[in-house]
């Protein structure tokens, strides 16, 4: 526990130091300069809130990826689960609203529908890679490609456009008393329920993986499946569990992004998910398979994504929007270059034949 606290201390210390540096720079910067405008945008609480909001899909994708990969299954299909969950949540909300269900109720049922569909897709994926021994990378890729075709197809059939109509979002929940705290309150305690869910899920996933029996089985399954098998625990069943948990988390990511932030499904190009699942994969590589650190990685990438909207409002900066959208991808590659190697589960990607 001591090392955990020390790591947490380091991160928080680093973060505070960063904020202080920015504030000092803000104080020195000449009034009215572009630098000052940029620093103002960065030190705004609205920016911090945006970072948290934007991080949601990436963070959940990362946590989902960890659970699959810790059992020894590479899950490239994360992106596909997010897409399917995003679309089905919208379909459910539109259907329920038409049927006369109240908007808030429809949103929550739609959220659940997204998770259910994602878990269903994860189950199909699990059957293919665990029972039928598919090549995991190719099967995951196939899940993504199927979703990339199926989601716009369904949207076209139901809504006569690859983009769905807009529905509402969850909005923000202000927590009484706590949201009154200056600065921190408006960022951390007046946020979308999805942000709360993310902040709660990270330590929960960390705890489950580290300290519960299921977590121990999952870790053993990826590092030494034979040992797990010898101990009398089914490797297949553990992998099924890991992939299904992955499906739940990805479902939350896809539906949470769609109903918590965007309010619609966009099917054009790479869909509205647009690589957020892949960013999740990089986030857990960055976080070295630690859920909390991976959510930290997601927040880092989100800080670039959210920056784009802020910088666009500064007229003096001519920011190419498209380039900014992929800035997280570039940052990720640079960061991974210097962060160094991650410790990958030993039996990752290998099929395991159970002893009869």
């Amino acid at each position, binding site marked *: 526990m001591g090392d955990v606290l020390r790591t947490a201390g380091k991160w928080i210390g680093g973060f505070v130091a960063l904020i202080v540096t920015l504030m000092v720079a803000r104080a020195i910067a000449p009034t009215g300069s572009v630098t000052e405008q940029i620093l103002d945008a960065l030190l705004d609480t609205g920016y911090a809130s945006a970072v948290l909001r934007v991080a949601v899909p990436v963070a959940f994708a990362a946590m989902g990826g960890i659970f699959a990969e810790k059992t020894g299954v590479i899950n490239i299909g994360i992106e596909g689960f997010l897409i399917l969950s995003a679309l089905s949540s919208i379909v459910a909300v539109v259907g329920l609203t038409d049927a006369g269900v109240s908007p808030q109720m429809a949103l929550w049922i739609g959220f659940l529908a997204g998770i259910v569909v994602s878990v269903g897709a994860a189950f199909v994926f699990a059957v293919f890679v665990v029972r039928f021994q598919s090549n995991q990378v190719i*099967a995951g890729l196939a899940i993504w490609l199927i979703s990339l075709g199926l989601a716009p197809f369904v949207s076209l059939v139901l809504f006569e456009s690859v983009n769905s109509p807009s529905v509402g979002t969850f909005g923000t929940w202000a927590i009484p008393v706590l949201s009154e705290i200056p600065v921190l309150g408006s960022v951390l305690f007046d946020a979308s329920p999805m942000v709360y869910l993310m902040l709660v899920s990270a330590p929960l996933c960390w705890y489950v993986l580290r300290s519960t029996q299921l977590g121990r089985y999952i870790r053993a399954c990826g590092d030494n499946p034979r040992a797990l098998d010898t101990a009398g625990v089914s490797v297949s069943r553990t992998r099924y569990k890991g992939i299904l948990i992955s499906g739940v988390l990805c479902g939350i990511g896809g539906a949470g992004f769609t109903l918590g932030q965007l309010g619609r499904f966009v099917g054009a190009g790479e869909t509205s998910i647009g690589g957020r699942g892949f960013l999740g994969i990089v986030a857990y590589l960055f976080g070295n398979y630690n859920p909390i650190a991976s959510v930290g990685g997601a927040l880092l990438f989100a800080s670039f994504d959210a920056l784009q909207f802020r910088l666009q409002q500064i007229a003096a900066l001519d920011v190419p929007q498209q380039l900014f959208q*992929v800035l997280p991808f570039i940052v990720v590659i640079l960061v991974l270059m210097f962060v160094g190697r991650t410790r990958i589960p030993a039996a990752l990607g290998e099929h395991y034949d159970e002893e009869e």
Partner: protein
Amino acid sequence: MSQLKERLERLFGTLVRLSTGQRILVSLAAVIFAIGVGMVVILGAGYFATCDSPVLFILGAEFCYNPIEVSLVLFDGSFGGNFEIARTLRWTTLLLFTALSFAIPYKAGLFNIGAQGQFVLGSLGAAVGVIWAAAFVPGGAVGRLVLVPTGLLVGAAVGGLYGFLPGYLKVRFEMNEVVTTLLFNFIATAVAFVLVDRYFVDESIQGTQTEAIPDAAALNPQFFANSADFSLPVFVFALGIVAAAYWLLTRTTVGYELRAMGAQPKAAIFGGVNERFTTLFSMTTAGAIAGIGGALFVLMVLGRWQTGPPPLGFDGIAVSILAGNNPLGLLPSGLLFGALQSGGQAIQFQLGIPSELVGVLRGLIILLVATPELFRMMGQRLDRRGVIDIETGGSD
């Protein structure tokens, strides 16, 4: 001694044949299975879609699309006439390049998911290259002799560089090529958009696109309908590249080392194969080939670069996997996906069924081909019931 060798060779021969035969069976089964699922999807979509006049009634339920009619239109739209065949072959030609771009690194044990990005940047490079070079060369036949190779070379160079990068990241920083190539696709699309939008945009028309390439650089349709944007010599050129790749992989030392890395990395490294070289070589070659495909897309089909490139890079993965990543299998497999692409346009145009359906089929085929175990298990089950006899492979 020589007798033993002969006998061993014969045994090996049968084994190799058997596995090739089985692989072809798996591929066929996967395609049939995927099309079957596709039909169910069409039926389901027809149930939910809204239309004025349903075409099919089953048990009182109304369906907007009739799967049999869809298959007929799909077939007719890909092989039904001169224009349709040309359109099919056009897609096949381009797919051969992106498929090779997946197949070659695969032989070296690497997953190149980045053909899409290499294709996009290669096509942009070719477009900009020929537009720029056109100022220095005369028109007509001389111009063609200079401009077409220029376009192909620039496409190959840009694509090759974009394939080299993930290879370098892998050998230098041990970054997984699946992740880097995936991300590189997104980066390529954005970079290409910004470059064209800022520097190469044709201001006379709306949209983000470059100027039209000079006439001398355009590979005009030959022997086939004009409107299909297909030139037969280009198809022959593509076949030549496939043959060259086959020769490279099976008849040269480099190819042997590449396959050794893919099959038994530890043994290969112990035997003196340079891992850095095989990784960089296969990824760069793959990128260059995808880049040439991109160049041909501009020179033969579009006549300029514009946003919203078709997902040929991802289709190429499907083509290669269906072909067992064997260059010789790419032709039938490429033809199938070319036909699906071509027929997909027909079902959208004639029946109003979204051509995204083809994307679903593509994914399903990849998934099923990656799962030979599924068919082996199904075969065993049938074997136990006495329906077929696995040992002789016959069914009676």
